[in-house]
């Protein structure tokens, strides 16, 4: 696919946005806008697939937009092609889903104009080949998604979410702006080509890395910059939540890879420690936060934070290996990270679609009011279950493969010489293992409380299965989760040009391995075959069913639950989301969240109900954001006098500022 072709797809999206702006309240607007987005995404997806798999020459295009002496440059290389696949796969699915889901939208005029712009913005970020276009597209993406978060603006919590998001997005863009400014240097070479050949000094490289980590990290949701994410992602309509969690965070990962591994070149090993440590902390904290939630969409959003941590662990490992020229191991680590990018975009979108279906059917996001939906919505329940198994990194689905590859990369690292890495990498491995185990607990809770058991509210008891568009989307993504899990060799081989372009090395060709196994290094060291595992489990389960039904009993009787002889039919006696997480809260939460339980037990004879209150503190928020916000507020209060000056004072201030700037420039140059 040429870059010009991709731009035509973006053009089609902008036309859809124009239609959405012109006739948002008409009934035809919803199918037109989402249909056009679907067509544009599918075409772009096909083109990107062709570009990645085919013998792709790098393709560029220039539009006479943006800075007059520069123009807007676009370019597709293997890295961009891969991320275009992720973006357009996600947006195609979200558009298809929205053909059904969008009909329930109470305020379509707040969604339809911004949705195609959001998709277009994400595409443009990946396509951009100069700093100006990149930042402009990044802002397009941020602001249109902010508008989508504000779609249901009458809810107070959504307004707060949007505000926090706006502040964090501005902060992130500012950091990226500074990073690109440093990369461009004093002569203002904004094209990526010029940045690639420029050799940044160690101080500049350090600053660029810091800013890239802050800018891309805040968009991706790295702890401690994640605070906006669990507020904003659930606030948007569900198909937009899927795009924000499944795709936009990946665009941020793209930004980080583009700046650090491509434009800057692999940095010193010390930086990989920062990335690894942040990744490890992010993965564990993300899943612990997720476990404490009882709002289904917020749980999923927090879980995105965990997965971003896993991706950054892979990236950090790749940086560490590349710093010591162990390029084959770096290729393994980067492949693992990129594979997880694809996987997470698949199963997180799937789960958000599922939560949207639950929201449509019951009007509830709070798991404490759900339950028993597997009877009322069997198809949605099945696809949600597939997503849960995949995200919990259980074989034979896809989440396991990328985590397995990350573990294999960790096991290659004892030969790295620095002591810091020798101590840090095993610790990060333990954190990764811990987060994988906690993720399983988290999704047993999410699926078990929402879909199993007995309905906890009339809304859940009367839920109805959702429309065909939504179901088709969810089944398609379940299928992709299984496919990527049983045929991981295909994905790994497709990623080879991406990894090769960045690191100059690749993983061994996987499709040559007999039986479609994957072998990262050598068969004697490690191998995994998802296909055979899947076949074996299916075969032995079928065999067991057949033998038992043929030769033993096949009688089935229905009766009330046994429950040790004391069944209580009231749904209130079931385990809730809060009680399910209680043991884990006791084990981890007392230190991480300073969790405190208070039991208020009335004395005998008193007829008021007993109460259990749980207090959780978000330490990141309390110890980082509250002080910073307080300081900003106090400074703003002090500087308030500047607002009430005479015109002479203003003029003198302007002159003083000008002189100061010129002085700085004179000293610096």
């Amino acid at each position, binding site marked *: 696919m040429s870059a010009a072709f991709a731009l035509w797809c973006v053009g089609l999206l902008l036309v859809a946005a124009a239609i959405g702006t012109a006739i948002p309240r008409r009934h035809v607007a919803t199918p037109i806008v989402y249909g056009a987005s679907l067509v544009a995404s599918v075409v772009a997806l096909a083109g990107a697939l062709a570009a990645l798999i085919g013998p792709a020459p790098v393709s560029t295009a220039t539009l006479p937009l943006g800075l007059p002496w520069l123009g807007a440059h676009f370019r597709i290389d293997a890295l961009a092609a891969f991320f275009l696949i992720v973006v357009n796969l996600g947006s195609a699915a979200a558009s298809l889903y929205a053909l059904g889901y969008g009909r329930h939208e109470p305020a379509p005029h707040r969604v339809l104009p911004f949705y195609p712009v959001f998709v277009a913005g994400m595409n443009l970020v990946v396509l951009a080949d100069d700093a100006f276009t990149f930042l402009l597209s990044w802002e397009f993406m941020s602001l249109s998604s902010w508008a989508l978060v504000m779609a249901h603006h009458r809810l107070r919590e959504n307004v707060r979410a949007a505000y926090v998001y706006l502040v964090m997005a501005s902060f992130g863009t500012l950091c990226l702006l500074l990073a690109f400014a440093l990369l461009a240097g004093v002569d203002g070479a904004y094209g990526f080509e010029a940045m690639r050949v420029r050799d940044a000094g160690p101080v500049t490289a350090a600053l660029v890395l810091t800013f890239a980590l802050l800018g891309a990290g805040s968009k991706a949701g790295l702890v401690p910059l994640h605070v906006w994410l669990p507020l904003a992602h659930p606030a948007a309509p569900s198909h937009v939540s899927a795009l924000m969690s499944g795709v936009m965070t990946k665009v941020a990962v793209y930004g980080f890879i583009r700046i650090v591994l491509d434009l800057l070149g692999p940095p010193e090993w010390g930086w990989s420690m920062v990335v690894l440590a942040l990744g490890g902390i992010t993965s564990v904290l993300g899943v612990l936060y997720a476990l404490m939630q009882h709002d289904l969409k917020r749980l999923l959003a927090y879980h995105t934070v965990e997965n971003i941590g896993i991706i950054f662990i892979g990236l950090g490992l790749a940086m560490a290996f590349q710093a010591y020229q162990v390029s084959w191991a770096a290729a393994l680590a980067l492949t693992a990270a990129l594979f997880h990018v694809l996987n997470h975009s698949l199963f997180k979108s799937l789960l958000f679609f599922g939560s949207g279906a639950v929201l449509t059917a019951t009007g509830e996001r709070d798991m404490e009011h759900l339950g028993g939906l597997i009877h009322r919505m069997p198809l949605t329940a099945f696809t949600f279950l597939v997503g849960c198994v995949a995200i919990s*990194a259980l074989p034979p689905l896809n989440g396991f493969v990328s985590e397995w590859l990350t573990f294999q990369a960790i096991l290659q690292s004892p030969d790295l010489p620095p002591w810091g890495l020798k101590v840090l990498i095993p610790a990060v491995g333990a954190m990764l293992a811990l987060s994988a185990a906690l993720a399983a607990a988290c999704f047993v809770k999410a699926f078990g409380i929402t879909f199993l058991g007995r309905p906890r509210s009339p809304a859940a008891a009367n839920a109805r299965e959702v429309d065909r568009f939504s179901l088709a989307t969810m089944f398609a993504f379940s299928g992709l989760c299984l496919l990527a899990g049983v045929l991981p060799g295909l994905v790994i081989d497709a990623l080879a040009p991406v990894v090769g372009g960045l690191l100059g090395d690749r993983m061994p060709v996987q499709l040559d391995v007999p039986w479609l196994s994957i072998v990262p290094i050598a068969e004697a060291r490690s191998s995994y075959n998802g296909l055979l595992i899947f076949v074996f489990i299916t075969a032995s389960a079928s065999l067991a069913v057949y033998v038992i039904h043929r030769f033993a009993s096949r009688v089935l009787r229905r009766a009330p639950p046994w429950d040790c002889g004391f069944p209580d039919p009231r749904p209130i006696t079931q385990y809730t989301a809060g009680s399910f997480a209680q043991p884990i809260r006791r084990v981890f939460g007392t230190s991480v969240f300073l969790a405190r339980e208070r039991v208020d037990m009335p004395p005998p004879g008193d007829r008021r109900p007993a109460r259990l209150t749980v207090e959780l503190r978000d330490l990141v928020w309390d110890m980082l954001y509250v002080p910073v916000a307080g300081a900003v507020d106090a400074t703003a209060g002090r500087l308030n006098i500047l607002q009430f000056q005479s015109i002479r004072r203003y003029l003198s201030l302007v002159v003083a500022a000008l002189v100061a700037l010129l002085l700085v420039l004179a000293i610096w140059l």
Partner: protein
Amino acid sequence: MALIHDLVVQGGQLLLVLLMAPLLTGFVRKVKARLLRRRGAPIIQPYRDLARLLQKDVVLADNASWLFRVAPYLIFAATWVAAALVPTFATSLMFNWTADLIAIAALLGSVRFFLALAGLDIGTSFGGIGSSREMMIASLAEPAILMIVFTLALVAKSTQLSTISDFMLSSHVGVRISLGLVLVGLIIVAIAENARVPVDNPATHLELTMVHEAMVLEYSGRHLAVIELAASLKLLLYISLIACIFTPWGLVRADAGLAAYVLGSAAWVAKLAIGGALLALFETVIAKMRVFRVPTFLGAALMLGLLGTLLLFVSRSL
């Protein structure tokens, strides 16, 4: 010819683990009973139980979903596959490379995932208590086992079980601190994963202490039989795993004669018997823990695994 030979060995293992699993459970129960000066049920009692359960009707709760009916077979199939991939009497199994040690651990994770979901399906409070506690235990046991795998992989430079046991059989191993740590850690994890005393008690139906039994409380008939068989398989898997890593003697390498296979199987049965007897002895002399003491117990396993890995990162010879 070689293919047929390999298939026979792999198929033999598949059947052997399935047939031996109830026997091992019966043996452990018998030894425990003898240690308590009871006569105990005959060793073959688990087979009788299974046969009886298979013949009985399934009594299903009114609001049980399809997941509740599918889960036992999935649990059984995944455990069986995992158990068939651990070298018992021979290292060169045909499908050994299908899953390495990390994948086997993850397969057991899948088993637990579905078991916990099944516990929540009926919506009874006992099912919930079992699932929630099981996931708490797993959240510590799973990272512990992964750290143990890391240590072994760093020693043997492979996560492939057959390579690890070949390496352990070779003379390069020597006495290593990390391996000692890992052995203790692996035993702790095995006890927790198999719901044995002191973490859980397989013999009790005392409500507040049970974890595994609480999850399967609503199962009956053939479903229960399949789940019980899966639990026996899991115990066999863990003892075989510890045996093939730390006592790999007698394991048949590739291209050996029939005599070697007989010898290998005999060695394996002997290892199972010793492992089962030690487990019974341990269970007899120790008391059940409170649930919230379990994290400390498993945390020790996690720390041992982490320590083993750290030692190896620091020096290859420790």
